[in-house]
């Protein structure tokens, strides 16, 4: 069986793995690298649970050919906090009860981070649009939107 070497930066750390032909990024992150934060929900680009950032932009890792990310920069929820310090998004998700079963949460956080990295002061509609590719089945969209908006406000306060 042929394995292809792939190198990328995962949450700031140089990472190298050998991947099977046709392996997707989600499986490689989870099984080969051991970053279990992105989740499998559908394998077909419907649910958003596997969302990661590739060069800062949200991608569905289950639909990304692993060897195509050679040389790219990957961010996952597993690397969102800085040491012991939670990212404001994480804290507002906690305080605002924006997770119930928690399975959609890593994908939601990545979509939210991609938005806030580019749009520090999003409108409610922009937040809804940003997570429109992320399904939640415990019906938590409203607290999720609220949490993202309050995290944005806190991040703006820090800058000002």
């Amino acid at each position: 069986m042929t394995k292809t070497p792939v190198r990328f930066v995962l949450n700031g750390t140089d990472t190298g793995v050998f991947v099977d032909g046709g392996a997707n990024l989600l499986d490689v992150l989870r099984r080969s690298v051991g970053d279990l934060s992105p989740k499998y929900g559908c394998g077909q680009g419907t649910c958003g649970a596997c969302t990661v950032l590739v060069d800062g932009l949200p991608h569905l890792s289950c639909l990304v050919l692993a060897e195509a990310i050679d040389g790219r920069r990957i961010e996952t929820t597993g690397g969102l906090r800085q040491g012991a310090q939670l990212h404001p998004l994480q804290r507002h998700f906690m305080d605002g009860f924006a997770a119930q079963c928690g399975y959609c949460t890593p994908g939601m956080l990545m979509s939210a981070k991609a938005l806030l990295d580019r749009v520090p002061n999003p409108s409610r509609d922009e937040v809804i649009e940003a997570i429109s590719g992320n399904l939640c089945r415990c019906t938590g969209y409203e607290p999720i939107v609220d949490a993202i908006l309050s995290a944005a406000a806190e991040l703006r306060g820090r800058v000002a």
Partner: protein
Amino acid sequence: MLTVETYQTIQQAAGALHGRSRYLGGGTLVMRAVNYADQDFDHLVRTRDPNLRAIQIEGARIRIGAGCTMADIIGAADTAFLAPVARAIGGPAIRNMATVGGNLFAPHPYGDLATALLALDGIARLTDGSEQPVEALLATRNQIRGLATSITVVRPMGDDFRFLKVSRVKPKGVSVMSIAVWTPRSGGRISGARVAYGAMGPTPLRAKAAERALEGATRDRSGIAAALAVATDGLSPADDSLASAWYRREVAPVHLRRVLLGEDDTR
């Protein structure tokens, strides 16, 4: 198991394609098939060709690289008229991945952008240098040899181009139908109208009876009445999990009126 082949140019990639291979663009369709172990192919062919993502104006038309993503279309000033279409596709992650070229081959009920390209007199350029109207390409896309490298469309004037995606889930859902209309006018009367539907057949299709009925008409309620009466003539929509064929036929004239008159479909 799968073998992945990576080529420097799209022409090389096209040359490497055979019956057991698939060209990997943005991955949103092909990787899904890979994940579910589609047994019809065991080779993936891809390219690092940078020319596929160019967007450039060519007189009255604009050329869009087949490798441009939906996000590229939204981000480029020259394709602002297509931004509402690209924005209607998937969520942000899908739009960072899905390509223009892939959308031409997206099966029902996908292909909203292809619907718009069809309405805007799209012409695809293939790897062998030949050009093919999007309409002909869609009709024969299952047998096509080679790959599309770029597509040109007309640059519509003012609000001559309009697009509507109808879905049952807000803010995002798969198309019950999408409608793209291009109604160039001279002296207030429509001349050379294009009406295209997505999800009203196996591929995006033109509603030619409606196009004929719009010829010489004014773009107002009475002017478009004749077109609405033949809104689905010649189309055979399918029953699927999103809507029945009957439902699609019933609501098509309503949505066609809304898009032609620029009425808010209320979100």
